[in-house]
């Protein structure tokens, strides 16, 4: 069967990919610029085809707690929102991480702080990669840079989430959510049967048929046991950090300067890189695909050959801290960012590269 290429928004691709990947439940609340996820699911009516549950919750708080319940029962469940809504979800995300449950949270970022703006931003990088809610935990954080990756990362996020029993996040931004591109959707696959869920998730609250009762909780009052639980989670995070970092390099082999950017900024940076190369400046693009775990090792390796690194983000400098930690002051690391919903054009990136690194 020939691959079917369709044109759609990033948000729509998330919805279609979720249905096709056999997701059991989506629980969401409308917020710009991601409402097309819920709207597309409502329009597609997957409950009539795959049996997927789609529910508009009364709040982001309720939606993430529906995900908590569903995930605890072994189902493949997700929610999506945008920055202010994701702030509201942090309590639930912390519980889900603490109870070690798999789920997917999509954040199509908009500018903040507060109600901010509905225009694109990448200012939730810290929130996504450094915790967000209370306690020592991490989300597996994937940063799509295209509509194709919006579709592809739904499946990838769930695979990683179930592999490690840890919540995963797709950290997109308003540009990726709203722009339309060609996309090849994943092949449809059936949802898991009850037997398959019970086999895959022997820990889940599916009803204690033929086994001892299962308990899903993040609570433990004995500090000695609680420390052990935390150490177990930290060991898991170490394993994820060692095995699951992902990145893309474009034109890095002969690069004298490196741009590090994720999501929509990587697309802009790629165009800037091409323009710079036309002017004879050898620039390469390093794009982290997983923001947590951060691809520190390959970035440190690549940094050895360059004279400087420019980190381009739609924020005032968040991922730059991980870049600096990765390269450990071996090369100058500068930042260029636009705030408040402004998306830079490639020329601004080239100017920043010249002014902050090359002319120095």
């Amino acid at each position, binding site marked *: 069967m020939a691959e079917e290429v369709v044109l759609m928004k990033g948000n729509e691709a998330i919805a279609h990919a979720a249905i096709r990947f056999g997701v059991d439940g989506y*629980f969401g609340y409308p917020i710009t610029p991601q409402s097309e996820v819920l709207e597309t699911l409502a329009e597609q009516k997957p409950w009539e085809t795959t049996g997927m*549950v789609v529910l508009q919750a009364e709040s982001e708080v309720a939606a993430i*707690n529906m995900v908590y*319940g569903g995930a605890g029962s072994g*189902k493949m469940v997700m929610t999506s929102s945008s920055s202010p809504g994701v702030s509201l979800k942090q309590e639930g995300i912390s519980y889900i991480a603490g109870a070690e449950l798999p789920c997917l949270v999509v954040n199509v970022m908009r500018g903040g702080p507060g109600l901010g703006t509905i225009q694109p931003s990448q200012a939730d990088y810290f929130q996504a990669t450094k915790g967000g809610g209370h306690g020592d935990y991490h989300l597996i954080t994937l940063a799509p840079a295209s509509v194709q990756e919006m579709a592809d990362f739904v499946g990838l996020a769930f695979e990683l989430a179930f592999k490690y029993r840890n919540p995963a996040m797709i950290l997109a931004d308003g540009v990726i959510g709203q722009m339309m591109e060609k996309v090849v959707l994943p092949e449809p696959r059936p949802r898991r049967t009850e037997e398959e869920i019970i086999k895959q998730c022997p820990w889940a*609250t599916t*009803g204690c048929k033929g086994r001892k009762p299962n*308990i899903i909780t993040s609570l433990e009052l004995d500090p000695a046991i609680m420390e052990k639980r935390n150490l177990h989670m930290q060991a898991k995070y170490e394993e994820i950090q060692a095995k699951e970092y992902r990145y893309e390099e474009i034109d890095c082999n002969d690069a004298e300067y490196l741009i590090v950017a994720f999501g929509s900024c990587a697309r802009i940076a790629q165009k800037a890189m091409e323009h710079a190369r036309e002017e004879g400046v050898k620039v390469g693009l390093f794009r982290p695909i997983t923001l947590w775990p951060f691809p520190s090792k390959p970035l440190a390796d690549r940094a050895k050959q360059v004279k400087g690194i420019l980190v381009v983000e739609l924020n005032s400098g968040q991922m730059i801290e991980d870049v600096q930690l990765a390269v450990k002051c071996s090369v100058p690391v500068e930042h260029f960012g636009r705030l408040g919903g402004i998306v830079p054009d490639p020329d601004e990136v080239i100017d920043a590269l010249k002014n902050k690194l090359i002319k120095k």
Partner: protein
Amino acid sequence: MTKEDIIKPENLVYQKPRLLNDNPMHYCPGCSHGVVHKLVAEVIEEMGMTEKAIGISPVGCAVFMYNYLDIDCQEAAHGRAPALAGAIKRLWPDRLVFTYQGDGDLACIGTAETIHSLNRGDNITIIFINNAIYGMTGGQMAPTTLVGMKTATCPYGRDPEIHGYPMKMTEIAATLRGTCYVTRQSVHTVAAIRKAKKAIRKAFENSMQGKGSNLVEIVSTCSSGWKMTPEKANKWMEENMFPFYPLGDLKDTTVEK
């Protein structure tokens, strides 16, 4: 009858429900939780739903419900139990799903989740323990604390001018289209315990028959929080709680009119 006769299985008149395990309960003497836990265990067992039951415990005194009931349980964030339960029921329609929540959890921080779950007609049962006080955190004012009642955060008595009025969540629930069965019970006498058990059974059966959401409030004592002996707490409840929270069915759509 000799002791040997008494312990013969055919002479058995009462036994601890099998789903209630032997873990020592952390509940205070005189607390209603132990009785209600027992009723829940009995009903699940009598319905033959042991292997299909999923309970959601709250934040509050009943947070450790899962330590005493031998069924699958999830522990929710404060007030969010109905969100978990409603989702699980939609994802597992043939399971018996219920929440077990106190008044602080259900009527205060979880007001939105409770009302919306009930109004959606989630086919679940919410068991609502109303003792008009925050028990686990040490006796602070609850949304259901009676006017004039003294707690750690209203030590001179609840004053509506300062603290607002006690909230009747069960009355609110009865006005919601999605609810099937809304009732207020108590467990202060043997007769009341029997009635409460019937109510829980009815609610659970409704939820399995897809009739809508069910709320069973149990007006309860908190002898520690109220600083009374268990006996005095029961009496105080009858004299002060029941006039404001009258017992009985508030809504039952299964009864033909």
